[in-house]
């Protein structure tokens, strides 16, 4: 039978009475509170006890003080003399226990109690909320900008989609939490001054921190499941690295506190560790946002791997900003299949992006100065029309897409890019049931039946096999 129990209790920080009643209930069930850290409560098994609890804040404490501070000790002494025994301190939070269930409460003056809680809010909670709301609004604006710029690119990234949902949810939760707090505070202050009665906050609502925790867990789970092998690994490494850095920081601060270091020294130590942790996380996570490796197919059929490359190709300026993932098979469609006069083997750059909803494979190849770009989208059913619409409408004003007979392609729809004079621009979009292929051809003329046949044969059922 476990002696320790962890629970998530979603009490608002200002619902001190709610917290105290919960601790009383747990003690009556045989579980004594041992630590409270945000929404996480640690209980230890004890005999069933009918005791009173009081939860208060000692606002003068700083986050890195060694508890109890001399001033806090005076507070504790007064409480002790009145029968209230200290149970735990965590930063400003203090929990007291009294074996007399009918003891005079620790807080008896409603005005002082409300003022104390508001001082606590101003000390950290409100500033955090306002910062997060600002950050959330900034992120939402950035995301909207990305959607306007390229909806397909946005939808192809699970990071972007979950990111916008996360910030939307969290910003709303933070705003609601702040509004709810001020609504309670204004009423409580008024009531305390007019009647001397303390206004209890309403029962447990949506706790922003609980919401944050749940959202982060879901977000990471989704990203890890949706990201490609390379992305997932980098993300996992970043999460583990930052997590470990924080565990080390907590241990170091704890050890330094035991050694009697003062608040200022502990603060400096913690700040340094946090900065190091953040840099480690950013550097690892940052690697998945840029192509750390490019794989170029060579004439003898082997791959050359370029590590730490951001932009590389001898003949083509490669669009960068993605993880480049090699494929175990060679791309079946070569430039010489379309231009039989070409004899030089093609050299390829592959890259892939996207998640569960839209996956995009880019294959760029060169041979004898000619190039063939093949972009293949594998959209889910609902995203298919969005990709088709975006691909056929993202042209400069002087160009437009014309529908062509899809029959020779064995496709649903085929589009050809033309200029105002009706000249073929060497760019086509072929919509097969499971994929949309955008071709930038090495020729700028209508394709022959033979060329169409070769492209259809090689691409219609093409499914890449991604290397691990």
């Amino acid at each position, binding site marked *: 039978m476990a002696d320790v129990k962890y629970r998530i209790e979603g009490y608002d920080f200002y619902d001190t009475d709610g917290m105290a009643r919960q601790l009383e209930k747990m003690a009556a069930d045989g579980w004594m509170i041992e630590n409270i850290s945000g929404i996480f409560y640690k209980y230890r098994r004890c005999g069933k006890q009918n005791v009173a609890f009081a939860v208060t804040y000692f606002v003068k404490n700083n986050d890195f003080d060694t508890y109890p501070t001399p001033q806090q000790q005076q507070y504790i002494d007064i409480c002790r003399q009145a029968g209230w025994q200290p149970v735990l301190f965590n930063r400003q939070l203090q929990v007291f226990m009294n074996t007399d269930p009918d003891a005079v*409460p620790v*807080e008896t003056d409603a*005005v*002082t109690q409300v003022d104390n809680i508001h001082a606590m809010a101003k000390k950290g909670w409100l500033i955090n909320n306002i910062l997060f709301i600002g950050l959330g609004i900034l992120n939402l604006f950035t995301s909207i900008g990305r959607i306007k710029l390229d909806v397909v690119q946005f939808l192809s990234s699970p990071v972007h989609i979950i990111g916008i949902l996360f910030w939307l949810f969290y910003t709303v939760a933070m705003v609601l939490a702040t509004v709810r707090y001020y609504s309670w505070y204004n009423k409580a202050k008024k009531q305390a001054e007019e009647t001397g009665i303390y206004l209890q906050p309403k029962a447990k609502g949506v706790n922003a921190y609980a919401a944050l925790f749940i959202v982060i867990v879901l977000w990471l789970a989704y990203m890890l499941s949706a990201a490609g092998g390379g992305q997932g690994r980098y993300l996992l490494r970043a999460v583990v690295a930052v997590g470990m850095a924080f565990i080390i920081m907590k241990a170091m601060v704890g050890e330094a506190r035991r050694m009697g270091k003062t608040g200022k020294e502990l603060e400096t130590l913690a700040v340094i560790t946090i900065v190091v942790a953040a840099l480690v996380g950013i550097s690892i996570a940052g690697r998945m946002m840029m192509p750390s490796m490019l794989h170029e197919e060579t004439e003898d059929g082997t791959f050359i791997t370029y590590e730490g490359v951001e932009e590389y190709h001898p003949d083509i300026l490669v669009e960068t900003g993605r993880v480049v993932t090699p494929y175990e098979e060679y791309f079946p469609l070569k430039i010489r299949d379309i231009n039989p006069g070409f004899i030089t083997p093609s050299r390829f750059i592959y890259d892939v992006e996207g998640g569960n909803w839209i996956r995009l494979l880019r294959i760029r190849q060169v041979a004898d100065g000619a190039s063939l770009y093949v972009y293949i989208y594998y959209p889910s059913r609902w995203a298919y029309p969005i990709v088709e619409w975006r691909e056929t409408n993202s042209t400069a004003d002087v160009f437009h897409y014309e529908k062509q007979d899809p029959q020779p392609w064995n496709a649903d729809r085929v589009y050809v890019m033309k200029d105002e004079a009706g000249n073929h621009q060497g760019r086509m979009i072929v919509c097969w049931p499971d994929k949309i292929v955008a071709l930038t051809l090495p020729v700028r003329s209508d394709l022959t039946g033979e060329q169409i046949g070769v492209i259809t044969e090689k691409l219609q059922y093409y499914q890449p096999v991604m290397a691990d």
Partner: protein
Amino acid sequence: MPREKFQTLTEQMFYILMTLKNECCGIDIMEQIKKITGGSVNVGPGTLYNLLEQFSREGIIRLTKVEGKKRSYILTDKGAALLEKEYTRLQRQAEDYRRFFTQEG
């Protein structure tokens, strides 16, 4: 609109200041208030600590001595004036009440 601090006193503030007419320490303040009011007013230790801190900061009371864990305070002139002002206010209220109900009767 929140009222100005200590413009008027709450019941607990009033009794704490009253007991500090003579030098007194924390636990004794709580006991005295209980005794004076026959148990109808109780001051919690958290409230007492916070109010003693605020009163000290505002110069309403002052620390007289520290003996181990006991810290004793006494009312200052400013505090005495504040208490007197509050007493006058309460007396006026009581007087108004009495007059109003006497007239009605």
